């Protein structure tokens, strides 16, 4: 058989094909088109109180960053968020360990998650205000609820899904107790745990911004939600958009930088992603 009978055996793609094959490029293109539509419509509407243009928003965004106001607000938000996230994770760990070691712990976790998981955490804010007053403890309380149940639920179902074979392998080599949980159960359940962490993060971030819209965390230095609310009151709409922009940006960064990186180095490398 002659070589040309195959047509193409192997040939490099053209530069254009390769660029278009990159997901970031395609998504960047979509964003650029959306920004263009926004800009054109903003100019056409010519009403900065309803819809400031894309570039006005961008300008406001950079001004507020330069003045240090936005970074400070973002930092305040993230600080509170991390407190709630950490406490939520710690509690989730305690609940799931109780659930896998005792039957009553299992029943407790199942009952509690069935009750609290469908309840939007923000609905607890009025109660939290009565119990903890105006301030960050109230928000942390609500955040803990946003994080605890989805993480506990996912971790627990991950543990339950660990195959009997792997469990037997672990015991064969003498693993028991904490070492067994750490060396077998947690890595084997890691895909579920990671998706629990992601859901918990997303819930916590939304809940935080929503809670901050109701009141600033501590006297004078509220977070991003409070920044949006304040600027709406002073009718500085480009700043409202800049605040929203920051909320989206931080959400995206955490998702794509932190979680995507963890995923690439763990479940994807191990072939365990679902």
């Amino acid at each position, binding site marked *: 058989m002659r070589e040309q009978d195959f047509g193409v055996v192997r040939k490099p793609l053209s530069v254009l094909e390769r660029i278009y094959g990159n997901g970031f490029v395609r998504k960047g293109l979509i964003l650029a088109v959306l920004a263009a539509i926004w800009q054109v419509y903003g100019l056409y509407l010519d009403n900065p109180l309803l819809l400031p243009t894309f570039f006005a928003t961008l300008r406001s965004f950079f001004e507020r960053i330069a003045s240090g106001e936005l970074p400070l607000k973002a930092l305040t938000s993230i600080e509170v968020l991390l407190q709630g996230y950490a406490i939520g994770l710690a509690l989730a760990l305690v609940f799931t360990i109780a659930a896998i070691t005792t039957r009553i712990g299992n029943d407790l976790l199942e009952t509690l998650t069935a009750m609290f998981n469908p309840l939007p955490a923000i609905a607890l804010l009025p109660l939290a205000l009565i119990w903890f007053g105006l301030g960050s403890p109230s928000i942390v309380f609500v955040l803990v609820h946003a994080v605890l149940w989805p993480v506990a639920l996912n971790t627990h179902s991950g543990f339950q899904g660990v*195959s009997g*074979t*792997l469990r*037997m*392998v672990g*015991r*064969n*080599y*003498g*693993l028991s107790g904490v*070492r067994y949980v750490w*060396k*077998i159960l947690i*890595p*084997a359940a*890691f895909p579920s745990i990671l998706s629990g962490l992601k859901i918990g993060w997303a819930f916590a971030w939304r809940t935080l911004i929503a809670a901050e819209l109701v009141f600033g965390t501590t006297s004078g230095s509220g977070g991003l939600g409070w920044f949006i609310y304040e600027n709406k009151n002073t009718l500085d709409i480009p700043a409202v958009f800049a605040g929203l922009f920051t909320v989206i940006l931080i959400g995206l960064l955490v998702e794509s930088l932190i979680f995507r990186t963890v995923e690439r180095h*763990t479940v994807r*490398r*191990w*072939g*365990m992603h679902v």
Partner: protein
Amino acid sequence: MAPVQPLLQVDGVTLQYKTREHLVTATYRVSFDVHHSDRFVLLGPSGCGKSTLLKAVGGYLAPVEGRIRLKGRDVTRPGRDRVMVFQEFDQLLPWKTVRQNVMFALLESGTLAGREAEERAMTYIEKVNLTRFADAYPHTLSGGMKQRVAIARGMAMEPDVLLMDEPFAALDALTRRKMQDDLLQLWEGTGFTILFVTHSIPEAVRIGNRVLLLSPHPGQVWAELDSDGQDRVDSATGRRLSERIHDMLFAGHAVEDKAAARA
């Protein structure tokens, strides 16, 4: 010379387990001895309790009657002196490479540490011809390769007895045949003791030097046969070993007659 004590003694072992609705007797008063360097095969149709029996030897299940002794000591729990190789491909830890999987067993069981563990791991990975894949993650390997890693991991522990629960059952016919040859070759080199469970008659005849036939519901010892792997014609009956086994397993009436005679 003192009389040779069997390596593994299974003596009148009755095993039961509970499902959601039933208490099932898996085996009833099964006895057999495994000697050093035996390739001992437990053969029987599904429901004869052969896998349950293997798990009991592994220490995952306590007999309700009878004793299981390894080197004269009672088996009470899983241990590094009896390593299991399973049928399922997911017996490898997916988050560890081939090398790390083998080392994991050595390190966690406290068998070896550090450099020694790595050297021993690589020795056995070489024995199963996977040196090139030492740093590959299990999900990138084929089914046969995964089973070879599991065998390497088991052998690296240098256990008193390697417990194999239908390790080749999930492989395609060609790979299966190749794996059987490879296992025999490994055995030639090291002479380790194997307790092997299968429901395939040709596999039992090829792998085993001794074959224990079990009847189903509950598992009882039916016969114990010697095999030299060649499936020879028996001079007394004029039939091949595999044919004799086949007749015994599938002559359903014979089972009931035998059971009645024993009762």
